[in-house]
């Protein structure tokens, strides 16, 4: 794997291979010494143009468990905040000998530009670009669902026939985008539920059902309900009237949670707004995978770094 930029162009075989490697990586986390020598001598740069402590430390933990050297480059307090361009930053990292760059950027497509510009030869992992994609989040979500459904027998399997309902701000969500492509590639059926204002105006070509009614979606008995974080500043831009109305219509509250089947999986990419898009009872329930998602994130990111940095590169 040369880069990991999106899930849209990822094949089913490649996705399952990555998830299977992540299973191996997860086994490492259960050992007393949680470290492999695989990427010794490799340098991974976490290049974060947006604050995201969770994603950054997840990648940092993943790289360190593979014995890579990790450099954290945050836009705040660096030359980037003084107006240095993406190009100059990339060339600086190239000059320092970065082998992989994990980039989080507010502009959709910035990882693509970095990968195709020729500014830097390193492998690029997209750790979230604008409203576009967040492929490792989708991979960890798929990994989490697969483990829940198949436990120890997950290896080699897809998500065929699994129904997943994604609820919330689809319009601005890179998590929703990466998930709809990956989960569908793995055989799942995805439904979006959102206020009409928080859906892209044209969903032609998206492999997802769309609805506005969370109660109807709950009553259809989905295997997985994935709640997205709602940003309160959206109500100032007229996407919805206020947090109470949002919560009443599109929140996974106690009453809706109680109507879900006991086997249903409740997911959230974090950080959660408890009491807004998800109730504490739902978030802390046995069906909730919120903490597993965090743990699995490290395993999936180890697998991604491993595929990027070990073995032959496709272009060599």
């Amino acid at each position, binding site marked *: 794997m040369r880069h990991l930029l999106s899930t849209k162009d990822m094949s089913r075989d490649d996705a399952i291979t990555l998830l299977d490697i992540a299973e191996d990586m997860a086994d490492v986390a259960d050992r007393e010494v949680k470290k492999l020598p695989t990427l010794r001598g490799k340098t991974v740069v976490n290049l974060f143009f947006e604050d995201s402590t969770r994603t950054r430390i997840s990648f940092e933990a993943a790289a360190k468990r593979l014995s890579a050297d990790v450099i954290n480059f945050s836009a705040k307090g660096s030359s980037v905040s003084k107006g240095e361009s*993406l190009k100059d930053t990339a060339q600086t990292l190239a000059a320092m000998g970065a082998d992989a760059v994990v980039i989080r950027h507010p502009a959709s497509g910035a990882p693509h530009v970095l990968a195709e510009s020729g500014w830097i030869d390193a492998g690029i992992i997209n750790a979230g670009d604008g409203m*576009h994609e967040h492929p490792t989040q989708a991979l960890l979500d798929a990994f989490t669902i697969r483990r829940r459904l198949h436990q120890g027998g997950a290896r080699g399997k897809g998500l065929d026939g699994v129904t997943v309902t994604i609820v919330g701000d689809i319009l601005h969500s890179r998590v929703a985008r990466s998930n709809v492509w990956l989960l569908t590639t793995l055989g799942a059926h995805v439904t979006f539920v959102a206020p009409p204002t928080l859906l892209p105006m044209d969903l032609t070509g998206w492999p997802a059902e769309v609805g506005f009614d969370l109660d109807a979606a709950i009553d259809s008995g989905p295997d997985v309900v994935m709640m997205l974080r709602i940003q309160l500043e959206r109500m100032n831009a007229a996407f919805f009237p206020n947090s109470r109305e949002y919560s009443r219509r599109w929140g996974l509250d106690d009453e809706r949670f109680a109507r879900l089947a006991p086997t249903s999986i409740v997911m959230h990419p974090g950080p959660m707004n408890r009491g807004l898009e998800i109730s504490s009872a739902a978030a802390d329930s046995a069906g909730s995978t919120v903490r597993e998602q965090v743990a699995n994130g490290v395993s999936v990111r180890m697998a991604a770094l491993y595929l990027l940095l070990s073995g032959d590169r496709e272009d060599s």
Partner: protein
Amino acid sequence: MSSERAASTRYLIRGATLPDGTGTDLVLADGRITELGSGLSSAGASVIDAAGLIALPGLVDLHTHLREPGFEQSETILTGSRAAAIGGFTSVFAMANTSPVQDTAGVVEQVLALGERAGYVTVQPIGAVTVGLAGERLAELGAMAASRARVRVFSDDGFCVSDPLLMRRALEYVKAFDGVVAQHAQEPRLTEKAQMNEGALSGELGLTGWPAVAEESIIARDVLLAEHVGSRLHVCHVSTAGSVDVIRWAKARGINVTAEATPHHLLLTEDLVVGYDARFKVNPPLRRREDVEALRAGLADGTIDIVATDHAPHPVESKDCEWDAAANGMVGLESALSVVHAAVVAGGQLDWSDIARVLSATPARIGRVNGQGQGLVVGAPAELTLYDPSASRVFDREDLAGKGVNSPYLTMTLPGRVHATFHRGYATVLDGMLRPIAEIAAHGENDRG
């Protein structure tokens, strides 16, 4: 000495094909077309073999960004004039978004003078509608109209005159001197942070959408305002099928509106945004295939009156970055004729007479510029271009003559090539090559006496 030779240069263009398909020789002398017909005498003339070449009246671009004064790192009036000449243009209208803005008589006269000094084309300044393009109060439209620059086209292009009352007043006011307001139709609230055409693709790419309705609603409002006050309105860079419908309706109703489409909106579609190459970032954005087809049909049936380039040079660093941070705009003068050829002539929707109309006669008339757009007739100013329609080339940086290299056509194969351009009777391009700066400046100086 060079200026003396310049004044006396007489050209015999032998065996050219006129836009209507007939063959002819042309003689250019003393800045005019002096003879048309076959077997004309070559006595004392430089002879140009035009077999296989189409003679078109000198092209007129109603929408060019020359960037000077203020943004000389992007383009100067000289470099932009050279880009125009190599593209077959003999006149360009220079948009007002310079620094300082072209909102006073002094600035427009300076632009005019710099154009005259360069000498490659007639540079006709456009005046800003509002002071500093700020959309708050009218600029001194009358002073610009009465200046030596004789401004007749007023535009805040880059920004929409979105305030309906200000737009009404501007439309009314310019009637005093036969002016026209050229509107950049973009509802600002509907396009906050907009990055590309709004549709299925913008949703997938995660780029904030620029909805067609933001253009169409302003055009609808403006044609109704123009009807109400009896004024002349011009719509810049129409980009959507819905806009074509609104303008078609307005014209059927008798409203005095004209409209332009750019070469890029006639050829390219939003699919090019996949990959986030900022060369394809432009405002208004590239649209869907259906929009391209509607613009072509509108140009063919006269709903769209003209083609104008919206030539928008930028320095490399403004495009060599992530999509959101990149500047809007494409260079277009050098490629315009070839792109229009590919978009609407190759498929038979327009013929070369139509091209003479939409790229010369009508833009000159809308802009009320002297000495341009009068066609290839005896006595008309010697403004013409010789175009080789059978040529084909992979468009590359060598084909760009201005400072900007932000062309969306690089590596694309385009038909045709400008063989020669004549402005005021002297050649600005010969054998597909620009004539030297000093030679052209001497011609211009000689003309002004």
